[in-house]
């Protein structure tokens, strides 16, 4: 049972999609919605053992299933989760429920195809986080593009066609170059490593440090393009605002909550451990791009007049933080980056949900159209306030823990990094609070807004898990951090194994020793 658990989780949505396609008629919209929700709920229930039965002391892969798949070219069907991926898997299963439920009233045409796409999306994303074989990873990584393309292109906004193809091509260009990097790694392993043809990540980990730095840099760049576009890092972020603005609410939630994490996850899972010397060499470059992303994203967000676009640009800024943490290359930084991935998924996902709620009522997202909403929509305002504060990083809410850890990590790597990152936090607070002020305070002068109704029970129901998670991670992050620590420690050890002289600060850290960050003791 334990061996099949991941397969079961990954393919339940696919099975659901197939059943939906075969046995449901288009007109049975209620049945389709109920069934799709049931599938996502079952999938979430199946994933609960990943939380309860996860061994926090184990750094390697757990719940492993390995079957030979295409032996002639060394491909295996190899699934497993470790501290780096387990929370992302859980985040995905939760987000999928929310994404399904939030679409009930928002999507009114071609429902059947819509829920099929959502479920296919789930399988793609779950597989991406579970795959331990790079070939398998790539297959899942690419598959996610297709349903997302349809989600944006069919159910999107005014410029949906443009946004859909831009999203598709942009990410595709990155990932095909990454494929070349994967192939290079595969053949390097033949020459320098185990001498066998294999895509098995656990075996490839061994060959990484042996690759000459020249080739390693090229492979790094190939992976970098693939993942940086996905994250997206500055200057590859231009597809993101278009995709977010045009996508339906659920699409945005999935995009922000999970899809972008595939990029940051890719860096932690593949780039750092597989290409340690190159990772260290590129630290200044990566940090520079992250910091530009943080500040640029925040400044552009501040200038937006469309709420959804503002949230989209805030994602650029927040993911800059994640990348900064990851490329601090120390325990706190990566741990913070990991936690911040989850936090961003929750907070920004919730923000997109909230934007979707108001859009459904008013069919506009212009900030200037709103004002004084707090008097007509008290519950909505409260949830928005909590989410916004979580996004800013108010102590007691989830964002703070992640940002604090990232700053500690960045500080250890260099004072300069941390100094710039702090500017980003200030800016982040500025645009969010200003947005809140413009939307919810002031006078309720727009007659359109006076008719607004507050959140329905269904809306509260799907926002609730997000809010609970914000408080849980903010007040008691221990269970989350403890699950990640061992695996993050392993990554830190692997990336610093070469102890390259160019990054003495990172190398000076006792490799692999799990230093207890102060942040966890508050």
């Amino acid at each position, binding site marked *: 049972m334990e061996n099949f658990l991941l397969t079961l989780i990954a393919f339940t949505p696919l099975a659901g999609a197939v059943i939906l396609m075969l046995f449901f008629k288009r007109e049975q919209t209620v049945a389709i919605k109920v069934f799709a929700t049931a599938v996502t709920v079952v999938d979430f229930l199946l994933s609960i053992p990943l939380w309860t039965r996860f061994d926090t002391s184990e750094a390697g892969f757990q719940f492993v299933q390995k079957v030979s798949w*295409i032996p002639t070219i060394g491909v295996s069907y190899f699934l497993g989760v470790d501290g780096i991926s387990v929370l992302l898997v859980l985040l995905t299963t939760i987000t999928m429920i929310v994404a399904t439920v939030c679409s009930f009233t928002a999507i009114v045409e071609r429902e059947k195809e819509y829920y099929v796409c959502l479920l296919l999306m789930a399988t793609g994303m779950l597989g991406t986080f579970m795959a331990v074989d790079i070939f398998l990873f790539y297959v899942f990584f690419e598959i996610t593009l297709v349903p997302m393309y349809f989600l944006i292109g069919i159910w999107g906004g005014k410029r949906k066609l443009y946004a859909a193809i831009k999203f598709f*091509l942009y990410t595709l260009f990155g990932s095909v170059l990454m494929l070349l990097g994967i*192939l290079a790694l595969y053949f390097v392993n033949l020459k320098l490593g185990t001498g066998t043809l294999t895509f098995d990540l656990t075996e490839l980990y061994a060959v990484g440090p042996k690759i000459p730095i020249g080739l390693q840099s090229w492979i790094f760049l190939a992976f970098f393009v693939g993942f940086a576009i996905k994250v997206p890092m500055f200057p590859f972020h231009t597809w993101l605002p278009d995709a977010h603005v045009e996508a339906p609410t659920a699409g945005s939630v999935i995009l922000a909550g999970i899809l972008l994490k595939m990029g940051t996850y890719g860096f932690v899972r593949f780039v750092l451990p597989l290409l340690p010397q190159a990772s260290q060499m590129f630290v200044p470059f990566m940090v520079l791009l992250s910091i530009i992303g943080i500040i640029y994203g925040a400044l552009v967000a501040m200038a937006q007049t469309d709420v959804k676009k503002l949230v989209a640009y805030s994602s650029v800024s927040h993911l800059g933080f994640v990348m900064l943490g990851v490329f601090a290359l120390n325990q706190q930084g990566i741990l913070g980056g990991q936690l911040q991935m989850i936090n961003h998924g929750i907070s920004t996902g919730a923000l997109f949900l909230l934007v979707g709620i108001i859009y459904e009522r008013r069919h506009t997202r212009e900030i200037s159209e709103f004002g004084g909403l707090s008097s007509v929509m008290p519950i909505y305002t409260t949830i928005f306030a909590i989410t916004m504060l979580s996004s800013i990083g108010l102590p007691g809410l989830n964002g703070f823990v992640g940002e604090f850890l990232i700053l500690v990590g960045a500080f250890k790597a260099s004072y300069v990094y941390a100094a710039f990152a702090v500017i980003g936090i200030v800016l982040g607070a500025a645009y969010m609070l200003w947005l809140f002020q413009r939307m919810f305070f002031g006078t309720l002068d727009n007659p359109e807004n006076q008719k607004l109704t507050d959140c329905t029970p269904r809306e509260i129901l799907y926002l609730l898990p997000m809010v609970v998670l914000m408080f849980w991670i903010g007040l008691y992050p221990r269970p989350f951090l403890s699950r990640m620590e061992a695996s993050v420690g392993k990554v830190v050890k692997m990336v610093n194994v070469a102890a390259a002289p160019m990054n003495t600060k990172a190398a000076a850290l006792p490799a692999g020793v799990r230093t207890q960050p102060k942040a966890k003791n508050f």
Partner: protein
Amino acid sequence: MPLVIPDISLSIAAPEVGLAILICVVVIADLFTSMENKAGMGVLSLAGVAILALIVLFQWGGGAQTTFSGFYIADDFSSFVKLVVFLTTIFTILLSLQYAKVEKINYGEFYVMILFAAFGMLVMASGNDLISIYLGLETMSISSYVLVSFIRHDPLSREAGLKYFLMGAFASGILLYGIALTYGLTGATSLTEIATALSGPQGAAIADDPVMVFSMILIVSGFGFKLALVPFHMWLPDAYTGAPTSIAAFMSVAVKMATVAAIIRVFFIAFPALAGKWNLLFWLLTVFTMVWGNVAAIAQTNLKRMLAYSSIAHAGYIMLGIVATTKIVGGKVVFTPDGLSAVLFYLVAYMVTNLGAFGMLIYLCREDFRGDNIEDWRGIGQDHPWAGMAFVVFFLSLGGFPPTAGFVGKLLLFGTAIQNEYYWLAVIGILTSAISIYYYFRVVMVMYMEPRGESQPAIEFSKAPSIFVALVVLVIATIYLGLFPGSIITAAKSSVAGLL
């Protein structure tokens, strides 16, 4: 002078002999068939080809055997190619049975010409001598000229046939001139004898002879024409657009397969001494082909023409595999057999995919509505989700997207390029393949995201079971080869094992 009887073993050449008999049977049976029952000729050909395919399968693993004084060789490589040719023929006939009626070209000769073309391809696959390869090539080409212009009442088809014929005849001349020069310098037309003549110190002098280099350039160009490598591709878009759709499908796969087989034999067996030179030439042609094929496809509004350009681009990927197979280390030529097996796998993947893509056009085609414009597909994905999905699968595979056959094919090809350090070729190739997604997905966009216009004719797919069955098999094969490519890869590997 005593009469020397050459060693002729008909059993080794069983597929060709069988096909020749089949052609005769169909021609004779055609005489006794009424105009309404000409589809029966298709069924007869189909059955015959299926049996011949089994014979080839039976020959598999028999080792290399030559006959006809060394003009002909039967080995696993030729068997592999022949199987692909036969499968392509089978699907082409399946797709044609009803389509021929729609286009009013339902004559027995239609199927006979397909079989003749297939016969030429078999000879090319088994050619062990420049002469026999040339003969096969001409048999294939002349039959193709006829097939392309088969819709006599359509000026487009006639024009296509004439263009194809003029260009093709010109290319054959160039090829023949190259063969003649080679014979003049080496005194041989047999592939192995040419290789012997070019090896050793004496051979090195011949290999460096400018005339020899010139003859090799001619041979490269001749094959380049047949394979439609840029800049020798001019005929192809017109020929494919004008040709009956099932013939365009047939040519895009089978002609390519046979020509690639001939290229592999000629260059890897006869001309390893000149590998550095032809490899460079092919490198350039490959890059031009991949880039121009994909870029030109973007601008097309006719789906058939777009698929024609896409098939040019795919010829580029196939050539990428052939270029990457050759590695030159310090003046020494090393061939990587995995590169050739990747090429063969790609051709199989391309077969199921491209036949499927053209098959979709045939599926929509009816008497008063050809349905080969991209616009004609507007809204089809919304009203006919299954048909739309099938087309999406084919497009994904053409674009090299997992989990389809095309992805594994490209992975293997680019893998060889990376392995032998053709990094730039791999980068250019993979970026152009990402470009290709743009124009493939433009059709998907039209199908799913744009509503069908008021004035557009209603969608009505063909009701012929043969087309339906062919498409279902092709969709399943496209996905199956993407998920479980192992057995075909193994077969491709063992088929090239004895070749290099």
